[in-house]
């Protein structure tokens, strides 16, 4: 059965701030259930690579929460439509799989992109391997990122924020 909207958190639990997408999903789960409309599914996807395409098949509206490195101050929360992602030649395919940009590009080519796809990105500071835990700057951004996700959910489902 299709969900109305999927919120997919990506990241590696054991690479410090890279886990911020997962932390935002956990923070959303702690919200009082009534604040999230029915039909919204929260997924901690880890590092899904091309499996993102399979996840997208499950909903027409998708929000992805992931770590971002753009040079902005750590903790900055970005929000953009997937159609505005930079072209893939800016970011090569990673050794372990495929990043979100590749997945979006491949999804577009294969006609497997959700009708609405928003990316909420949190600027990170550290990707220290085998380290669990966010840096304070990024930890502090989790509630702000959560708010942006709630706003995006409201927007996608065509309701005004209460």
């Amino acid at each position: 059965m299709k969900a109305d909207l999927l919120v997919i958190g990506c990241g590696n639990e054991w690479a410090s701030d890279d886990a911020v997408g997962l932390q935002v999903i956990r923070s959303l789960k702690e919200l009082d259930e009534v604040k999230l409309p029915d039909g919204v599914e929260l997924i901690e996807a880890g590092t899904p690579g091309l499996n993102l395409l399979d996840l997208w098949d499950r909903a027409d509206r998708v929000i992805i929460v992931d770590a971002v490195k753009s040079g902005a101050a750590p903790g900055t929360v970005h929000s953009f439509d997937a159609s505005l992602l930079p072209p893939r030649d800016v970011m090569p395919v990673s050794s372990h799989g495929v990043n979100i940009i590749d997945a979006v590009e491949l999804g577009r080519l294969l006609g497997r992109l959700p009708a609405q796809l928003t990316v909420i990105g949190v600027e990170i500071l550290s990707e220290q391997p085998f380290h669990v835990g966010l840096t304070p700057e990024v930890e502090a951004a989790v509630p702000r990122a959560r708010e942006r996700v709630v706003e995006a959910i409201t927007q996608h489902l065509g309701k005004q924020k209460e």
Partner: protein
Amino acid sequence: MSDRRLYVDYLARMEGDGAMDIVIGENGEIKKAAWEVWEPPRFFEAFLIGRKVEEAPELVQRICGICPHAHHIASLRSMERAMGIKVSEQTRLLRELMHYSDWIMSHALHVYCLAAPDFVGFESVVAMAGNPDLLPIVGKALGLKRLGNDMIVAICGNEIQNRTSVLGGFTAVPSKATLQALKERLKAAKEFAFETVKLVVQLGNVAPYNKLERKAEYVSLYDPKRYPINEGRLYSNDGLDVPDEEYPIWILEKHVMSCNCKHATIKGKGIFAVGPLMRVNNNFGTMSADARKIAAEVGFSVPCFLPYFSIVARALELVHSIDASIELIDVLGEPKLEEIKYEYKAGESYAVVEAARGSAMHGGRVDKNGIIQKYDLIAPTARNIASLEADFKAFVPQLLDLSDEDLTLKCEMMVRNYDPCQSCATHSIKVNLRREK
């Protein structure tokens, strides 16, 4: 005067981190041909000591997201052997089906996403999909990979790491209806698997790929009656033929400077290689009838010592894996939930299974309370490092007319021929080529 040096520090489209460093002297002689694995050691063997024996198969599947079931099953079989536990026929068959699911997922990924882009001149599978002629193939390839994943979910209850397979058996089994639905999808996937074989033969059967031959000792499991995925004797095309639990006696390891992987040799002999090409060479006769038929149709025969044809072996194994899975589903019928019973017993043993990328060994010693006293695991990638360096030394002198860029790519392909997975090995890739001019 300077060396010609090919150096790639983080090679894409493989699992894990490592570097390739090749230095060519002014007369075309190879001064250095090394594959350096950067990926840090994982220390699984150390932290399993003192843990309950049931935990080993559960924990070792965390080594890797591509071949978790190979590590899991090798661990199960070795620990069961150490304690004298016999599992049911249904458990053996379900484990085979679980592992073939992994092969389908892994081979589809490697053939199309990791290896094919090199042969057709694209940087990645995403770039390949940008070509309108190749786009439908990429779509089907992802569908085939998905089928492997869905089979894993049906059997293991989880996308990658299993939740159902434990020491002694399974805690849950798939229903007949679930298996039948998978069977229909497998039957439908067969045509694309045939297409895949034809396609990769076209890619591989051109110069220089079909000229770069290196006769070597090819090691895999072997069973005269059944294609060996989980069980068989440890075997080579050059006389090795011993019970698989004797792996630690016959395969010797040494540490090498500049590499986080141990290198391996056969006792009293030299280096060797493992993987699909080696498996197909040693076991062609027990591949499915359709796999052998399509091989004949495209002109593939064994022995084949062309490393760049490993992509062909992988595609043939895709056909075989689909056929074998269908047969396993038929034989399994309606799986029953069986009671799991065993007692702890002191013992030591080892077992080899064929991971998608080659033979993997697990094993160790357990005390009478089921506590692990010693644990060894050897992943296929670690076995192939010396063989890869031999490929560099044999093939680079034949390719000196190529530009640095092209020669570097050909060397990267030599690495990917082994579908290395440094996460397992510990992990690897950079390529570095230097020529003296």
